[in-house]
């Protein structure tokens, strides 16, 4: 299988989807949450801008990513982006201190999504709000250049700034042939280094259990990835692969050829990586936990275990991971043992 094959399949799936019409002056989503910043738990405002969409996703893109369907049918103009920002900030009007996390379902730094003008507007607006303690923007690494980083640092002017990159894994093989991500580990390292010299921190998103990968290999891949990225990432956030509409992962899942990761897997990963690297922040928000499309254990324990994962993410205290148990853990252990040898038909129980 070549990368071209995989991209072709993903693109075919994409082309069968309908994109729902939506208002361009509202963000795709925005919400208030909690986040860990410099050892302190503070409020966070997450904004997902509606843009013309991820250029990579529009050309096919990642096998698990359905965010591309959040993009606008017609490109929002700078006024629309402005309205989106104000709409989101209104939700945070009651907060006293917060971190702002900006996503676009693509790359914030891609000028085809967010024009230079809008980028300036946004960063200036955030700089001016004193309640905002930190700004995090997500981007693919190719948009992390000396130029863009200098621009951002000029605009945000001393406020802590972080770039978040969906690295997914340190394995180029998996990133290429399973995720179809379109960049290499070296690209990430380069971006991280460009940021670091400017005092910009880097957050790496990892993806637990991309398609085709057994549960056990997935766990090992993340643990290895954390080791690999340790020098380049200040924060590691592990996303648990869930089944998004209109993705290759969904197609596999519908045919029982994919199962989202077990929550025991993330418990295991967090426990082992945090023990090995107590100095970096390792977090995971198990989105959709407990549902068939999301990471899940059995029906009895999924909620508790997901809570423990969230709790750990805020506290970084591995003892919270040791407090959960359930009989289904034996099943998970057995799956870890056997799933390596199913030769293409992952265990989906």
């Amino acid at each position, binding site marked *: *299988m*070549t990368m071209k*094959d*995989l991209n072709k*399949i993903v693109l075919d799936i994409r082309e069968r989807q309908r994109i729902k019409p939506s208002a361009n002056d509202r963000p795709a989503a925005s919400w208030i949450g909690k986040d860990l910043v410099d050892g302190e738990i503070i409020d966070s405002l997450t904004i997902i801008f509606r843009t013309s969409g991820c250029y990579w996703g529009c050309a096919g893109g990642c096998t698990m990513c359905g965010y591309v369907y959040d993009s606008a049918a017609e490109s929002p103009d700078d006024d629309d982006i402005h309205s989106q920002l104000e709409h989101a900030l209104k939700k945070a009007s009651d907060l006293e201190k917060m971190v702002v996390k900006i996503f676009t379902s693509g790359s914030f730094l891609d000028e085809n999504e967010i024009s230079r003008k809008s980028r300036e507007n946004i960063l200036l607006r955030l700089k001016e709000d004193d309640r905002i303690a930190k700004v995090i923007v997500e981007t693919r690494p190719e948009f992390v250049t000396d130029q863009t980083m200098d621009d951002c640092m000029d605009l945000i002017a001393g406020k802590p700034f972080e770039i978040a990159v969906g690295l997914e894994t340190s394995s180029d*093989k*998996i990133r290429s*042939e*399973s995720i179809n991500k379109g960049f290499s580990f070296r690209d990430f390292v380069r971006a991280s280094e460009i940021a670091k010299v400017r005092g910009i921190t880097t957050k790496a998103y990892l993806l637990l259990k991309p*398609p*085709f*990968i*057994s549960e056990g*290999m997935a766990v*090992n*891949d993340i643990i290895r990835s954390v080791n690999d990225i340790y020098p380049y990432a200040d924060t590691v956030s592990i996303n648990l692969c869930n089944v998004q509409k209109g993705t*290759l992962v969904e*197609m*596999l899942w519908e*045919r*029982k*050829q*994919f199962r989202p990761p077990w929550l025991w897997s993330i418990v295991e990963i967090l426990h082992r990586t945090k023990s090995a690297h107590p100095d970096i922040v390792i977090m995971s928000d198990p989105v959709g936990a407990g549902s068939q499309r999301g990471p899940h254990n059995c029906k009895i324990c999924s909620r508790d275990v997901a809570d423990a994962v969230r709790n750990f993410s805020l506290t970084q205290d591995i003892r919270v991971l040791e407090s959960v148990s359930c*009989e*289904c853990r*034996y*099943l998970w252990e*057995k*799956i870890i*043992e*056997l799933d*390596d*040898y*199913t*030769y*293409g*038909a*992952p*265990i989906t*129980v």
Partner: protein
Amino acid sequence: MTRYFEVLQSDGAARIGEMILKRKIQTPSIIDVSYFRDPENPIVDAGSLWNISPEDADANVKDLRTSTGDDTLIILPHQAIPPVILHENSDVNEMMPEDSGAYGCLYRGWTSDNIDLYIMEAAGAFDNNAKKFFEKIVEIRNTIPFDTALYAPAIALPENVAMLAYLGIDLMDSTKTILASYRDLYLTSEGMQYLDRLSEFPCRCSACNGADISDIVSMAGPDRQEFLKQHNLNVLEAEMAYVRERIREETLREYIEGQCRARPWLTALLRLSDRECSYAESNTQVVRSVEMIANTSESLTRPEVVRFADRVVDRYAPPLADVLVILPCSAKKPYSISPSHQQFIRALGKHRKYVNELILTSPLGIVPRELEIAYPAAHYDISVTGQWSADEFEWVSSRLYSYLCSNDYGSVVAHVDGPYRKICETVAQKLGIRIICTSNGNATSKESLSNLKGTVSSLLKDESVTGIKKTEEMLRSIADFQFGKGAGKMLLPDGAVIKGPYPKYQIYVDKSQVATLVPQYGMLALTLKGADLILPSNSYIVTIDDFIPRGSILSPGVIKADTRIRPMDEVIVQGPRIIGVGRALMGGKQMTQSTRGIAVDLRHVRKY
């Protein structure tokens, strides 16, 4: 081709084989993949290319070979993907082993001499998808050599191993069964049930025997799961062993015709396999030492039945007669020794040698009198309820129809009742011909029999001509049936002498014996002289290399073989310096593909 796997016995697509590894494995077999990491295991896995680089994988294979020796099967590094993803047949080529030893690999459309085991990629994902699963198996089996093993991972359960084996899978694993145990599922060869839904243990296996269900249900997780694992593995192993026994007995077909009802997709697999009949037929023995039980609607489409019907059309030519007499089948076989047929034969009396006789029967359709002793015409048993299903009716009608289409008679007499008669009427109407019915509702009543006699007598135009030599024609027909049209005339030229009481006939030509009819199977066994006679037909010949065989021909010695040859067929063996006769133990195609095993059990051989 293979060095570490041998097929010992076949029963259709199913086979008993042996993986000749450091610990021999009788197949079909259940293996435990959790030992694939253990270098002491006869099968080891060299790792996933998702996980390790090609260079490391390569080194891995070399290390494993060095540390384990040649008789450990190494599964080559693989990068398996689910069936949803199309893939080119390229990427594993570079992993081809160069050194000696046993190797297995994912099936990706190509084969290699060094591979003893192919893995059906993502077999487990085909669970419940009969069509795709069946197509995949056929594709693989038709590509890889007959004597390589096929492994279907992560799909076996006690309920499906019989069908998997029937379709030609040699290796399966305990993966799904073990996982079921951790999900509180209690398995049987008919399905599964949650432990807490059971009222008692429907089993006396070493785990269940004496166990109290409420004790087990209230056990702690690991203990309960261990109990279930023991039971479930017992059931899986027992079912697998039972399947092996049924293959050895040559009755796996009968078993799966019942057992496949456990799940709709298994039944669908049986039906699909019958529809694609050549897959199983091409290696189905021509005779079995056991009765054929025809007990389901699918019995009408089993390979033996379809083959018999095909051969009646393709290979049988009735001796010339102006009158056809259609008769019902009988419980006792061959039909002519049954009380009812004895009466029919007596009624036909001296007229009999001027008529053809055709017996209607389910599941075989039509049996010409000359072939009543051929397998399985004299070797089947059915459930008798007196009523025919629509499928039986349609099948038998279609056989009669096609027979009457290709054979012209002045008159057709049907001495049958009930559904048989309705079949005759339906076919007559469809063909626009007249069929004379001579039975009054009870074919063996005096009135019916005298009616038959009178009718046939009045229909015969000219009895002064020589009638049919029944025995001679029977033997010619059997020869045609066995070796193809025309063989009968070659083996029994005019003037051939037949000795022996029915049915132990011996055929002599020019005072030399040319063949014997083996009553048990209804087949002719040739002498060397008989082989000489039918050699010009160029049929059923196995061509061997230049050596002098004794006793049996091993498959590596076979250069060419008639692809019509099936296991148990009578064959002629020809080499540069010998001619011989014997019984095939493999199909013709399998003989040329195999590097191990006995191809022909030789009876006589003569050097030039």
